[in-house]
């Protein structure tokens, strides 16, 4: 989370860069959960 003071100002470039950073981080987290669920069951051989 970046400092609130710069948010929704008219500096669109900064805004977009910050948004992209948070968005990519969240997408990576979701993907990691998805992969972990499957790998975890795969290596345990169904236990």
């Amino acid at each position, binding site marked *: 989370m970046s400092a609130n003071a710069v948010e929704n100002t008219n500096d*669109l470039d900064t805004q977009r860069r*910050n948004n992209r950073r948070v968005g990519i981080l969240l997408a990576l987290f*979701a993907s990691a959960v998805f992969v972990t*669920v*499957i790998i975890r069951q795969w290596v345990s051989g169904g236990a």
Partner: protein
Amino acid sequence: MQASHDTHDHAHGDHGDHAHHGRAPGLMGWFTTTNHKDIGTMYLWFSFVMFLVGGAMSLVIRGELFAPGLQYVSPEFYNQMLTLHALIMVFGAIMPAFVGFANWMIPMMVGAPDMAFARMNNWSFWLLPPAAILLTGSLFVPGGAAGTGWTLYPPLSVQMGLGMDMAIFAVHILGMSSIMGSINIITTILNMRAPGMTLMRMPMFCWTWLVTAFLLIASMPILAGAVTMLLTDRHFGTSFFNAAGGGDPVLFQHIFWFFGHPEVYIIALPAFGVVSHVIPAFSRKHLFGYTSMVYAIAAIGLISFFVWAHHMYVTGIPLTGQLYFMYATLLIAVPTGVKVFNWITTMWRGELTFETPMLFALGFLFLFTVGGLTGLVLAITAVDIQLQDTYYVVAHFHYVMVAGALFSAYAGAYFWLPKWTGRMYDEALGKVHFWTSIVFFNVAFFPQHFLGLAGMPRRIPDYATQFTDFNAVSSIGAFGFGFSQLIFLWVVLKNIKGGEAAPVKPWDGATGLEWTLPSPVPYHTFEDPPVITEEHLAAAH
């Protein structure tokens, strides 16, 4: 506070092109729109259509159950109806309804011009109709739709036909849509609040959605993983859940409910958020206990990941496991109790009036408390072993889902409708909608507690004759409740066509940035961040 005004040339370079005029004309405009208000509207209409489709399926169920014996449908079709009813209501109606509210209200509440990722927002919505077509279309393929119940338990889900694959694919698509929607909501809330709108001054609806979006991002991939493994078990020779190959069907239940219990709060938390706006507005007081409300929401969200096996008391988990999951589940009553206490205290010595939004919010409060109470009953292992898979459970979760989520969605819809359309709705009709809904709801679902206590199993199209009377009453209630919902359609259509113009703030007790905007809200709002003053803050106190 007001930032310097230098964006305009800046923005016109790449995506500023849709920033200064409205939607493209006709149908194409709806396909291509990136405006949060358009997308919110589409989510809300989509969810209402799905609500009617899922509702029609529930009437097939209640029609069949009106009397013992088999009357109208085969047992196989009955199973498909109850499966699709649940999947459509959960993923097609309730969740998109609250995402619709989020799209409409969150940017306006935090003083942002739109959602953080406007084009991804468009994609999130347009993934939904294909998923809906897959689910309903699966009824027409050989073997019909999935008949496993929404829990999709193996071994049945490993054995069923093409309809099951379509359901799995639909769940994948819906999951992607939810995850993208959540990424959008979190980023909007964390990054795009107007200066001065600190997290702890944020309206409660935004708080509930912030926690909900994290729950979604953490839990939807788990469901996606579970159904992916189902898919590979079905078609690619793996044996995650297939006992014939050394797999474990109970493993699926663990994974499913690790998603499934947080899902309950994914539905309930935004409902709490809406009610936390409506009750203060019609009590003409600030929300009592803002800080404790925020912590309660976070606590509920966190604990919801550690209680999943209360759905699995009879699967042979160890006694210590049963005890742990019982106590952990009972623990959720504490933050939930804090919230109910705060809502009641908000009303205490308030100047109460009972317009339709307030009626639905109070309906929510009463009925959700009933559903929460039966949830505590079911959390107790020794009791649950008796009541597992009976109508008591069906009654319990309909009090939570219908009364909890649907009633608060109506509270929100009536509350914000004047802001959206710029006109007041027909208050008398709204009240008729509320009273028919709450009476018929209880006629439909209260007797199901008795049926369950007497031992009537769920998910069966036929039953022993001693259950006849309560089933007949329940079916009459269900049909009454179903047709009462058409009153809402009438109210909305009437409101779109005309009606008395709504003032900027039709509810004198309402607080928050959205009530500083004209009614109807202009297509673009807060392109320059607003200056936050004390009186705007729904949160203050």
